[in-house]
């Protein structure tokens, strides 16, 4: 029982980082119909930003903020230079461009920042906490709280604020939104900035728990896609719920079945879901070409 609770708490911590990344992916997919793989690179770069600023003596929590700001700017630049020009092109172009951008950034980081694994040394990792039978570290609690808070906060921001309503209007119907006077380019910028913030927060929060290296973004972004497909492309609550579900599945799978194949569970679940429902679990939204 204690072990089960422990696995569940680990799963929720992992799940909160997936939820953040999946929310970012779902947001961009809703607004632009682009499965933005490049968010995985922002996730990785944010962890590097944390590492380097920590080396220069900045407090860990402040490095997260610095990473978030830089990645938000980078995401907007990406939108401007890459995704805007091909917006009217064929559906596949955005996906291929995103994939190219991801591979480019990942390998540039590999060459520029080195192949060695970096460790973010924050005292939070060693700070133990015991909540009933569950053992946590402060860092894990921080990941869980910040991940959950940010993803739910972002959801309510989209639900209540004016620009949030505009973003949702654009994801429902781009042409109609343009017709009633919504500035679509501005909406794109804001959506990309939010997605950059969430991806960066996810990377900077995971950083101290994992080893920071250039290829650290690949698995999380692929899993974020699994989550987004499971939750239905473009569905934001689906992305948050799906992130936590996947975190739990993986943590329990690694604990009780096999830890070497833990990454296979996520992908296996996706393949099985696609067998039964080709448009994902909650995906009723028709794809627009």
């Amino acid at each position, binding site marked *: 029982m204690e072990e089960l609770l422990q696995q569940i708490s680990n799963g929720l911590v992992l799940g909160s980082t997936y939820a953040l990344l999946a929310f970012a992916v779902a947001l961009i997919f809703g607004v632009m119909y682009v499965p933005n793989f490049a968010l995985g690179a922002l996730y990785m770069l944010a962890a590097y930003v944390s590492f380097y600023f920590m080396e220069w003596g900045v407090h860990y929590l402040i490095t997260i903020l610095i990473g978030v700001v830089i990645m938000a700017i980078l995401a907007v630049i990406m939108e401007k230079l890459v995704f805007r020009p091909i917006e009217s092109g064929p559906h596949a*172009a955005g996906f291929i461009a995103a*994939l*190219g951008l991801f591979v480019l950034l990942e*390998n540039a980081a590999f060459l520029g920042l080195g192949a060695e694994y970096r460790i973010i040394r924050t005292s939070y990792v060693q700070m133990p906490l015991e909540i009933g039978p569950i053992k946590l570290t402060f860092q894990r609690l921080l990941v869980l709280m910040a991940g959950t808070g940010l993803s739910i906060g972002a959801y309510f921001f989209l639900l209540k604020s004016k620009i949030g309503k505009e973003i949702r209007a654009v994801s429902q119907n781009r042409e109609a939104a343009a017709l009633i006077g919504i500035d679509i380019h501005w909406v794109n910028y804001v959506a990309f900035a939010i997605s950059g913030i969430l991806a960066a927060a996810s990377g900077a929060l995971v950083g101290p728990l994992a080893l920071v290296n250039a290829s650290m973004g690949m698995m999380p972004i692929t899993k974020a896609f699994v989550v987004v497909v499971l939750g239905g492309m473009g569905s934001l609550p689906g992305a948050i719920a799906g992130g936590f579900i996947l975190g739990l599945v993986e943590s329990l799978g690694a604990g009780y079945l096999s830890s070497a194949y833990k*990454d296979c569970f996520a992908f296996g679940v996706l*393949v099985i879901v696609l067998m039964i429902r080709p448009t994902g679990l909650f995906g009723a939204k028709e794809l627009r070409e």
Partner: protein
Amino acid sequence: MAKKVFSKKVLVAFILFIFFALVPFLFKGYYLTALGMGLFYVLLGLSLNLVTGFAGSISICHGAFYGIGAYACGLLIVKTGMTFWPAFVLGTVITGIISFLVGIPFVRTKGPYFAIGTLCFGAIVSLIILNWVSLTGGISLRGITSPGGLGIVKFKGMTNYYYLLFAAVLLYIYINHKLRNSRVGRALIAIREDEELAECTGVNTRWYKLLAFSVAGLLAGLAGGLYAGYMRAIDPGLASIGHSFTILAMLIVGGTGTISGAIFGPLLLWLLPEFLMVAEDFRLIIYGVFLLLVILFMPRGIAGQLKYSLPNISKWIP
């Protein structure tokens, strides 16, 4: 007039054929090996073209089938003591069967769902090859025997192996050409242009996609078997997502749906870093840059864009 256009293309194709047939006499050593290795990617580009080019579905697991073919062939040789050729044939058939079975759920999905589904399958395959150490030997599988000979022809060294690859390339071009000008090819192109419309006009989209997907997988497996026979040691990197991305990037840079693009995209992207003598680490950066430039400025790929925007030149492109 139509006759004449046809003959110009045939002329260019013939000159290229002569050139590539004479490569082992024109180049020796390093350059020959580099070109020969490029032909493996031409095989992959031409086979991926069936599903991504004609049917228009972006598949990110082509490297997985290449790896499955190489490992099936290699394991049959190493574990059961078969000679190369029966293992090669059996390995190719096994890959074809796997791609058929995997294709069944995937062909029901469309657009990004298909791409992400195939990406996940590719990730599963590379994880299994890497982690099932007792079967696959983990980081590398050694001790594969080379083809030896077929009748009086001996396949030793790149000079002779080049002709084996060259024959395979001709076969793949023939399959691409036949398919494009057949009922199946027209059905696939209809699916690429508008899947719903094709479905409404009575095209059995799932069946045709499944056909394209499994034939592409089988042909990737065949190329994998040839690779195993040439290298005699294989590693899980063959089936990695990065490798699948490389193949996809090569095809897209060349031009999806065109035979010339599926040949010259892989050759260009393989040979450019090779002759620039850049480190292996720069390869994927170059592919990423090329892919972005092509998507931004030549959405049809290099060959496709030449054909589209310069009709005068297109007469000369086979």
